[in-house]
């Protein structure tokens, strides 16, 4: 493999393997959910309520991770929940990145009045408590996948804008940017050819981090019942349901929680690992 360091070959670290592996597994699970899920995630059977996972006494064959109080299969629900979680992570993460990074790049490179306007906006934005803001937005927009994505973009673009602005400022002060301008490049052209490639590692790291955050925000919204319709399983929704019966059936709460935890952790670790690999130099 050739990376920005030229011919140097570097082993893919354990961190990248583990986080990438988990996410790949999750993507696969989401794609093949109808094929591999042992049960219908929506099918209720009150006679099968609160069955424990397979290694405990009284487990029902075929329900590997047990069932919730309505008798729905926990494993199947986690698999189907991965679909929504990943769609939100991908779409909301990417959109947030596009909006935030573009504004940050403009503010950090152009400075002057564009910077003043964008930075003040960021300041004002960050004064709102993010989750409350999201809940308010969903209340206005009405629940649904689109609303969740819009809410995440609207509350989280500032993260990108701030970091990318700072990076663009550092890069903008470098001599190679000045020489590109002396050579007759326009300011916009310089931004695209000189600044952008050098802030890209940071953008990639932030993007994967943001995907993890998007998964969390979606879970929080499901938890307070503001996500998409209660029919389709979501991790946040499962956690909310599991909470009420944690003393009788802990597995309903714990398994989605572990999945959520591992997913968010993997996203952030993947980001770190990728940043290391993409970073062209020991800056």
């Amino acid at each position, binding site marked *: 493999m050739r990376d920005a360091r*030229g011919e140097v070959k570097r082993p893919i670290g354990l961190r990248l393997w583990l986080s990438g592996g988990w996410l790949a597994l999750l993507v696969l699970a989401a794609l093949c959910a109808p094929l591999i899920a042992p049960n219908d995630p929506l099918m209720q059977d009150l006679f099968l309520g609160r069955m424990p996972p397979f290694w405990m006494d009284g487990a029902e064959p075929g329900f590997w991770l047990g069932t919730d109080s309505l008798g729905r299969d926990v494993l199947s629900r986690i698999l189907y929940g991965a679909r929504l979680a990943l769609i939100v992570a991908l779409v909301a993460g990417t959109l947030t990145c596009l909006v935030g990074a573009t504004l940050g790049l403009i503010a950090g490179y152009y*400075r002057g009045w564009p910077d003043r306007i964008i930075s003040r906006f960021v300041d004002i934005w960050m004064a709102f408590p993010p989750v409350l803001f999201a809940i308010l937005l969903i209340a206005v927009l009405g629940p649904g996948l689109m609303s969740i994505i819009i809410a995440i973009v609207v509350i989280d673009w500032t993260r990108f804008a701030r970091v990318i602005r700072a990076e663009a400022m550092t890069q903008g002060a470098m*001599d*190679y940017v000045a*020489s590109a301008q*002396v050579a*007759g490049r326009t300011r916009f052209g310089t931004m695209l050819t000189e600044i952008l490639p050098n802030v890209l590692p940071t953008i990639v790291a932030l993007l994967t981090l943001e995907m993890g955050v998007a998964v969390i925000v979606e879970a929080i919204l499901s938890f307070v019942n503001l996500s998409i319709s209660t029919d389709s399983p979501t991790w946040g929704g499962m956690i909310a349901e599991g909470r009420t019966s944690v003393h009788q059936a802990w597995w309903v709460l714990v398994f989605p929680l572990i999945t959520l935890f591992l997913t968010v952790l993997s996203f952030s670790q993947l980001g770190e690992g990728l940043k290391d690999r993409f970073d*062209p*130099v*020991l800056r």
Partner: protein
Amino acid sequence: MSGYLSIRNLTVRLKGGAMILRDVSLTVRAGQVHGLVGESGAGKSMIGKAVLGTLPRALEVVSGQIILDGTDLQTLDPKERRRRIGASAALIPQDPLTALNPSKRIGPQITRRLVDILGWPKIAAEARALELLEEVHIPDPARVMRSYPHELSGGMRQRILIASAFAAEPKLIIADEPTTALDVTVQKQILRLISEMQSRHDTALLFVTHDLGVVSKVCDTLSVLYAGKVVEEANMHRFFMRPIHPYSAALLAATPTYTDPTGSLTPVPQTVIDGVEREVAEHDMRAAP
């Protein structure tokens, strides 16, 4: 006194604040090397930046003319000015470590100028870039073209920057302390290389430095700057024989010599400093309305 680049009464200040350049005038003739010396903070680099249009945003040109090849740059609109500067001037920067884009290979960074400025086709530009790298004595130029900046040493990078400055055959090159960031042993080679390239390409060179020893080796004429004011503009020979301004004389006297390594360093006397400071203050009094 007409030259390829002439600066007339250039005054630059911090927006709403301190003076950076005070009424600076100097001339760089076609094909000649003009040295610009002064202490750090005297405004040497700012003159170069003003000419190239890369002054920091906090600074503004208050008055004066920068005449490049007969045209006053200040009268042109920004787009035309950028085109004009790109076509006729180039910079050899101070720090080779930050002057190359770390995420791009060397080749495109040199050919870009030829494609952008001269409108050459890419293949011709690549051939020319190879030639240029050979000209600055880089071994195995084909491999260097494919390298990233961080794979090369500081001296190599400075050679590449020199090659790329000369690439589009500019008539004026501004070298902003091109050897300051380098190892002493490499400094000499780079200095020799710049002189060699300058005389071969017959380029006018504005050489910014704080080292009088360097000036004496490469320059034809020079200006001495103090606190943003030119205290003396002279031809090389005359300057070293008979400096006119007391500050110049004191500077020359302060140059350490190799012949007497045990002799202590001579500082610039306080009376001389007070003298220039007074001149600067008087100038500001006159300039104030």
